[in-house]
């Protein structure tokens, strides 16, 4: 019996050998992270009622705004977290306002402004437990519109696997780096925060909002009733806006624009300071503008440095000196003290009373504090990094003392 079963086996094996296909096969699959477009009808977005929700853990914090004892932390394209920060050593997460497409905000009196795709929303936040939408200014951020169909285009993070990597399916061109919305979702890095990387700013009873190419002016004399005044074309690559006195300093990836906003309704260009292409937030005091240039996400050909620009004559800004940096992102100025977020390299502090020798006046370099932006707030220095939002006591500027850190559940990768 046994030998019969063995011979059957051999027969089976022989047949396998004979009938097997006999050449190699190669299959290639290409899996990539990309953004797929999602089309939304603005009428649907507007029809949804925005109700404050229970507190949510911070997932991927974007901009931060300080309002009285509260911190408003944007979750890019999702909404705004509200935290009670009366004790910076122990911030308490209070609630979340879900606002689709939101990437920036500003607070004027007791009114919070936030963008909602193409609209600007105004919320009454005088009672923090009862935040109400009081005004919607429609169709202002029209660059979000896809043609003129009343649809906005947004992008969803997706992983796609294809057996046909090639130009017709996007291939390398669909790499998520290229999609600008990837920058929104990583806003904690590229746009960040309310500090030097803000794109909304309030000055002289007006709200100024910059997008990639346009400055939009809103009259907010009556805070709960913002009125869209006009758009001003700035050219491409606008990244940040910083108000100082009645001037607006607008950082773009080719230079710094200085606008005179003494007629708040109609800012006029005073000068454009051109420099190499890089990502660059700006902070300003009476005499100097501090600009960080970094070789980063979409501006790979840049350099890493801090530039000090003499702006005593606003019509003729002049570079005084530049200092090499590691990978500077946001920066913040508090009196004579300048704090620079050095990305993964850490957090630096300088005494800048003498702008010609900033490099000799480095006070601290906290290498374990990864940071992308910071805000010198009234109670604490708020530092936003890939791992979370940390607060420091900076009453002794030369020695930062860590008060608290809010961990985030989805830290952003920084290299």
């Amino acid at each position: 019996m046994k030998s019969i079963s063995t011979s059957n086996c051999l027969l089976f094996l022989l047949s396998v050998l004979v009938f097997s296909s006999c050449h190699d096969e190669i299959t290639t699959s290409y899996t990539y992270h990309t953004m797929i477009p999602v089309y939304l009808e603005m009428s649907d977005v507007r029809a949804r009622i925005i109700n404050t929700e229970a507190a949510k853990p911070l997932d991927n914090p974007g901009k931060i705004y300080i309002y009285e004892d509260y911190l408003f932390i944007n979750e890019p394209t999702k909404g705004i977290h509200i935290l009670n920060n009366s004790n910076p050593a122990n911030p308490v997460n209070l609630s979340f306002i879900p606002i689709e497409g939101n990437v920036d905000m500003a607070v004027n009196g007791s009114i919070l402004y936030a963008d909602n795709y193409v609209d600007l929303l105004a919320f009454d936040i005088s009672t923090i437990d009862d935040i109400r939408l009081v005004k919607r200014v429609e169709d202002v951020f029209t660059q979000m519109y896809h043609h003129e169909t009343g649809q906005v285009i947004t992008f969803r993070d997706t992983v796609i696997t294809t057996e046909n990597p090639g130009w017709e399916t996007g291939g390398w061109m669909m790499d998520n780096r290229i999609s600008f919305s990837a920058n929104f979702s990583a806003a904690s890095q590229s746009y960040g925060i309310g500090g030097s990387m803000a794109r909304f700013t309030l000055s002289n009873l007006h709200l100024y909002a910059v997008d990639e190419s346009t400055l939009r002016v809103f009259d907010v004399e009556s805070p709960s009733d913002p009125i869209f005044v006009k758009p001003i074309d700035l050219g491409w690559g606008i990244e940040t806006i910083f108000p100082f006195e009645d001037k607006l300093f607008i950082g773009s990836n080719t230079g710094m624009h200085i606008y005179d906003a003494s007629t708040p309704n109609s800012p006029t260009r005073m000068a454009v300071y051109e420099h190499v292409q890089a990502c660059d937030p700006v902070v300003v005091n009476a005499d100097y503008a501090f600009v960080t240039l970094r070789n980063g996400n979409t501006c790979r050909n840049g350099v890493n440095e801090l530039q000090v620009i003499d702006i005593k004559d606003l019509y003729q800004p002049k570079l005084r000196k530049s200092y090499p940096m590691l990978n500077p992102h946001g920066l913040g100025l508090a009196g004579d003290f300048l704090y620079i977020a050095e990305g993964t390299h850490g957090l630096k502090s300088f005494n800048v009373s003498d702008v010609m020798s900033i490099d000799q006046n480095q006070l601290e370099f906290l290498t374990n504090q990864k940071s992308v932006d910071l805000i010198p707030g009234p109670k604490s220095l708020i530092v936003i990094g890939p791992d979370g939002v940390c607060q420091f006591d900076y009453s002794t500027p030369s020695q930062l003392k860590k008060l608290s850190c809010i961990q985030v559940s989805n830290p952003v990768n920084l290299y």
Partner: protein
Amino acid sequence: MSNATKLLLIGLLLVSIEGFAQKKMYFGQTEIGFLYGKRAGQWDGNHEKRFDVSFMTFHGAQVAKNNVIGFSVGLDQYDDVSIIPIALGWRGFLGKDGKPKIFGGFDLGGGTALLEKKVSDEGSKSWYEGGFLVSPSVGLNFPAKNGKTALSFSFAYKRQEVSQFYGVLSASGTQSVTNDRLPPGYSSLTENHFLYRSFVFRLGLMY
């Protein structure tokens, strides 16, 4: 040949020699030969031929009169890629003791790409992974005069899967999405999945 390969071969040899000292219960088979296959079709439908080295050693125990169950390890070369196949196997024999026998075998397991180095630079990583392996075989053995060892010729079919991966790391500041198909930190991953179908001709010893 890399040091790792040499070590492996020496190890296998030692294991094989040790085999001689075992009781009759033990069965060993060590063979060397070549793999023959045809590469995947080119644009004109032609298939290039592929010749590579194959080494295999099988160690098992006799579970019935003509049946042996055990495991096999070896070294197979597919173009530039070295694969260590590890499989569970069966050997069955037909014929009388002391006379040449026909034998059949079946090995089922996986190949590992341990010998292939991972390559990585600032923005990318590439590596190989082995995969599923199945190999039925038939052969003839010619016993030596002492009856303990035999010369063996095997003819086998071997189906081996190997994957080559090339991953591009996420750019600075981009968020990584959590997904089964894309490891964290990668923005794209290209997989070239090779299915090698080879005929194997080997010569060796049974003991």
